[in-house]
Each structure stands twice: as C-alpha cells, then as structure tokens.
C-alpha cells in the first residue's frame, strides 16, 4: 500500500511525518538537528530513501546532512560552497555594490535521473551541483556570470536562490528563481542562462518592466506540461505558457495577490493552489482567516478552501517552500505555517486537518509518495 512521508524544515529543527495512503493517522518523528534552522529537506525520486537537509545557524553557518535510509540516520557531508570564480558584486539594499558572500542553502533539488546528483540553490544567489551525493559541490557559474548579476539585489529575506525546477522532458532545461532578481532558464544543462521575466510588472522598482529585479517568491510546474509555469511574485500571481518567455497575470478574484507559496495539483495541470497573504507590510493571512485558494482553470478564477482551517483570529504566514503535493490517486496537499502547524488535505484541498499544531515556525514542506 502506498504511503507518504512529509519532510518539514522549521526554525528549530527538522521533523518527518509518516502516514499510510489514507493520510488520517500520522507518526511524527523528530526533532532532527534540534535547535538549528532547517531551510529545506528533499528526497530523491530515484532513491526515495536518499534525503538532503540544509541545516544552518547564525553562529555556525551551513551544514549539509544526507540520509540514505529515509531519515532514520543522517551524515554530515560537504558544506563548502565556494563560488567558482571571483564573485564580484551585486547591489546592496541601498543600491551600492556589495560583495557576493555565501550564507546558506535555501533549496535542494535532487536529480530526476541520478540519486547522486543534487542541485543546491544558495544565498547569495548561485546554483551549485553535486554529482557525488554531497561529497563535493561545484557552482554552475554561468548563472551568476551571464551578465545581469551586478544588478541583482536582495529581498527582505536575503538574496536567495530559492526555486529550482527540473524539466522532466528535457534534461538540459532547468528553471531557477531569485529574490529579488527574478526567474532564469537554462537550455543547456546549466552552462548558459537567460532572464525570463517579460511580462512581470513590479511597481516597487525603478523600472517596473525591468529585465531583472523582480521579487519572485516561488514558481511551480506540472511535469506533464513543462512549458506552463505558475509564479507567486511578491505581488501578483503569474502564468507563462511558453517556458517563461512571456508571463501574464492570473490573480483574478484573489482577495490579495501577495503571497509566497504556489503549487500545482499532481494530476490536474490546470489546478493551482496559493495562500494569499495580506500584504508585504503585514505578513499574515487576511481577515484572520487561513484559506487556501484553488483555481481549476489555471488561474483567474479562484475558490476559497477553508474547511478545517481556522477562520478567525489566525495570523500566520506560509513561506515560499512550505507547500507540497503528493502523487496519490486523490492528490494530497500539505502546507506549514509560521505558527508551527502543518496542515494536510487528502482530497485536493476540499478539507484540511492539522497533522501537528505546535512545531517551531515552518520554513519548508516537501512530501514523498512511497510505493
């Protein structure tokens, strides 16, 4: 019988939540790496027992942990993310040049074809690759050096490369996103990159239609439709039908189009989930109500999903990597909040149940669908 394993990164450790395919009864394991920030954990689809975890602290910096047994035991692997060339400068918050400095790993994206290969999106923004399961890391420097790097600027959370999407139909194509530079695509396996931000409009930057400088919060893709991308920008929910070459807004009837997470149903490429957040000044859900919004039309027309979610006195946030979907026949959806709750829906968002309510603030949620 199928089962699911939910990987939760929090501000004070990692947790693993297991359930069978019914997704009613859960076993909570952890905390792993107690006291450390776990920005992200993700498992390989080639070998689901191979997991990578980004462990960090302000005191001791970055640690990378790997498990080869589904999270039962962990081993620290190489944590040396050395930029492949003189990093140069990007823009600081005040517009002055600032040297590139490694701070942490925001996202691990394991290869779709090789369990030893994994990509790491880091702050200050760069993309690294390991082909030996984390024993060594090499920067794909073509991204940082493609030309617009000196114009990149950090968002409030730092200049982080937080989204890495691999195209299952084209091993040479990959998408990444950076706050606050925008989205980028490679069509040659990471050697060369180009910005893909045409159509994004950000009124808070000097040129609202600039090639780079947009605060992209997250991007999602359905594997069966790899040219269709959905984006939660700082403000605006966006869609591209041509692999990011052009974007158009699909915020439609959302109560606010600010937010962080966005994800796509496992089996319905036009069904999209977001969690609207009140504003960039008030990072919590509007009206004290925690609601997921679902579009079954690829955007523009959104319905509020609130059954089982708190509908008064709720003031949590849901961060960019804190939503995931499983691949069971009836698609499960999961998200974690800044208040430490992890909610699950076993019916594609129609109803929700908290798996746990009192974890440290959730930074990331991933789910593995296990045979």
């Amino acid at each position, binding site marked *: 019988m199928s089962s699911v394993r939910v990987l939760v990164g929090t501000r004070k450790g990692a947790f693993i939540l297991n359930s069978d395919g019914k997704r009613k009864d859960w076993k909570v394991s952890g905390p792993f790496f107690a006291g450390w920030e776990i920005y992200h954990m993700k498992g390989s689809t080639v070998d689901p027992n191979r997991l990578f975890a980004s462990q960090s602290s*302000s*005191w001791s910096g970055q*640690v990378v942990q790997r498990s080869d047994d589904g999270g039962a035991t962990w081993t*620290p692997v190489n944590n040396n993310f050395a930029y492949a060339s003189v990093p140069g400068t990007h823009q600081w918050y005040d517009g002055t040049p600032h040297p590139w400095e490694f701070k942490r790993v925001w996202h691990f994206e394991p290869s779709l074809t090789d369990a030893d290969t994994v990509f790491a999106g880091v702050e200050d923004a760069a993309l690294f690759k390991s082909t030996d399961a984390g024993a060594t890391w090499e920067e794909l420097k073509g991204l940082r050096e493609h030309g617009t790097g000196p114009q990149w600027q950090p968002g409030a959370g730092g200049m982080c490369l937080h989204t890495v999407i691999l195209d299952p139909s084209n091993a040479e194509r990959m998408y990444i996103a950076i706050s606050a530079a925008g989205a980028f695509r490679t069509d040659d396996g990471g050697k060369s990159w180009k910005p893909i931000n045409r159509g994004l409009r950000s009124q808070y930057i000097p040129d609202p239609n600039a090639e780079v400088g947009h605060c992209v919060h997250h991007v999602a893709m359905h594997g069966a439709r790899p040219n269709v991308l959905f984006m939660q920008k700082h403000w605006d929910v966006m869609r591209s039908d041509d692999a990011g070459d052009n974007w158009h807004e699909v915020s439609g009837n959302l109560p606010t189009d600010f937010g962080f997470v966005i994800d796509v149903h496992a089996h319905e490429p036009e069904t999209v989930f977001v969690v609207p957040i009140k504003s960039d000044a008030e990072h919590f859900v509007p009206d004290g109500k925690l609601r997921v919004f679902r579009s079954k039309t690829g955007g523009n027309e959104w319905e509020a999903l609130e059954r089982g979610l708190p509908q008064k006195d709720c003031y949590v946030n849901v961060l960019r990597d804190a939503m995931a979907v499983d691949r069971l026949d009836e698609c499960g959806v999961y998200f974690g909040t800044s208040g430490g709750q992890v909610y699950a829906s076993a019916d594609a968002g129609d109803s929700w149940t908290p798996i746990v309510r009192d974890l440290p603030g959730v930074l990331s949620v991933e789910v593995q669908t296990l045979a």
Partner: protein
Amino acid sequence: MTEGGESGPMIRVALPYHLRTLGKIEGAEVPLEVAAPVTVKRVLDALEARYPMLAGTIREHGTGQRRAFMRIFACEEDWSHQGMDAELPEAVAAGREPLLILGAIAGGW
C-alpha cells in the same frame, strides 16, 4: 606526536553544545595533540582533521576567518581578536587550561 617526534601535552578544547552534537562528541572537552607553537589556527586544523564535519562551523571556508558569532577564550581572556596565528598562553599549550570555543550570546529566536 610533536614536530620533534615526542608526544606533547594534549590541548583541551571545549566546544559549544551544538558542535559537540554535530560531531557526535561525548564529554565536555576534546583532547587534541597539537605541535608547537600552539595557535588557534593549529588547534582548529587538528580539530577539523579529527572531526571533518566541523569544518566551516567555527571559521569560514576559504578565508579561514573566525565566524562572526563564534568566540574564543583562553585563560579567562577573550582571544577572539588575537588572530589565528597568535600563540596561545602556555597554560593552554600545556593542557592545564582548556581553549574555550563559544557561541556568542547574540539573541536570535
């Protein structure tokens, strides 16, 4: 063994809780054999050779500089700004006093 081929005194290094956990280190102190002259750099070289997972957690990869919120004390003195190559007090080199590596009390959440 020291550079002269003789067993020298064991340096005692006290690490913060999180790094003892990361290194799966039991006990409050790590004994290390370090060739003279005993400096912070040489102690950290020996520590990271024995516990590779601690590389990058006390001093930065690349620059080798102390991480901003890590502090180093010797004989009740703040050694954090003495530089990596400054010779540590004789009492530390002789193993009578530990070299303390601490996380700064820097708030956080």
